[in-house]
């Protein structure tokens, strides 16, 4: 018997490609956000609304990750924004390699921001870096205010948290203050945006934050 020390990062391959992706974003002066949530939180509706409301202010491209179908990509296409669909064929998250292929298919010299809509899943996508500048976690009030406590990993890593579907808040038991408190316990810098992507309530603050992020990123690069 022989013990061999390896001491190598298990996800080093993914990490290597994610660093290449972040170089590519930097070279092209593009901010990249990785949007993560459970299925049905309203990511696509939020994305479509954000694109429409920021149409005259910034140029957004989208990489859509889904296990199957191009339903989400079709919805984004209606906004006129460039969109690439990636089907993971069963995998529960996007990998850096898939993003590097996606980037090549987008008109990157015409964009300020790429938003990656990850596969609907609150656990797995948080373990895979894609080369993004930040993660945005989307939570909807119908899912319950216990999600930050139950899925701490993504809430600890995210830059911003959306509390979506606040137009439904009267009909569900969702304590916004509790969700905020649980999320900020592990992540004091987390920016939180309660909004409704359906009615538009609260969208202004979120849109303003995105524009600030783009301008800070482009100044720095």
């Amino acid at each position: 018997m022989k013990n061999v020390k390896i001491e190598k990062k298990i996800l080093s391959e993914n990490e290597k490609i994610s660093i290449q992706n972040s170089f590519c974003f930097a070279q092209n002066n593009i901010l990249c956000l990785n949007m993560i949530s459970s299925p049905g939180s309203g990511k696509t509706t939020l994305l479509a609304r954000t694109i429409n409301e920021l149409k005259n202010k910034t140029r957004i491209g989208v990489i859509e990750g889904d296990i199957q179908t191009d339903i989400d990509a079709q919805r984004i296409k209606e906004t006129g924004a460039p969109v690439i669909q990636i089907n993971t064929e069963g995998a529960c998250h996007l990998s850096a390699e898939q993003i590097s292929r996606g980037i090549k298919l987008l008109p990157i010299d015409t964009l300020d921001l790429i938003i990656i809509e990850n596969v609907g899943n609150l656990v797995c996508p948080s373990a895979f870096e894609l080369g993004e500048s930040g993660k945005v976690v989307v939570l909807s009030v119908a899912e319950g205010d216990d999600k930050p406590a139950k899925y701490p990993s993504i809430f600890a890593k995210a830059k911003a948290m959306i509390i979506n579907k606040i137009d439904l808040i009267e009909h569900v038991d969702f304590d916004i203050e509790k969700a905020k408190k649980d999320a900020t316990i592990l992540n004091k810098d987390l920016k939180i945006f309660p909004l409704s992507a359906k009615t538009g309530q609260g969208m202004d603050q979120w849109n303003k934050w995105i524009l600030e992020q783009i301008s800070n990123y482009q100044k720095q690069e």
Partner: protein
Amino acid sequence: MHETMIAESIFKQISEEAIKQNAKPVTAKISCGKLNAINEDVLGFAFNAIAKGTICENMKLIVEHKPLQAICKECNNNYVIDFLSIKCPNCQGESMELLPDSPLILEEVELEME
């Protein structure tokens, strides 16, 4: 379920090492931080499925969970944090800064020489 892709990466790295050394892997030790959200049973199940019929078949996977640590901003105490309570055990303060979580590492492999 992300354990499947992680199991594949572990399998690839161990197989390469085993072939290089002309040996059969018996056990492998990996370590991971709390934020990697690794379920040991799921990882083991995925690994066994991938390893079936290969040089890694019947290999035992040992997972060492590294705790998540924080520094208390009130008293500078360095302590292990769980997700249920963030209080500093020294001063009961609730203001802390998380230290970087440990990445997933393939630490070592025990090989049976042919």
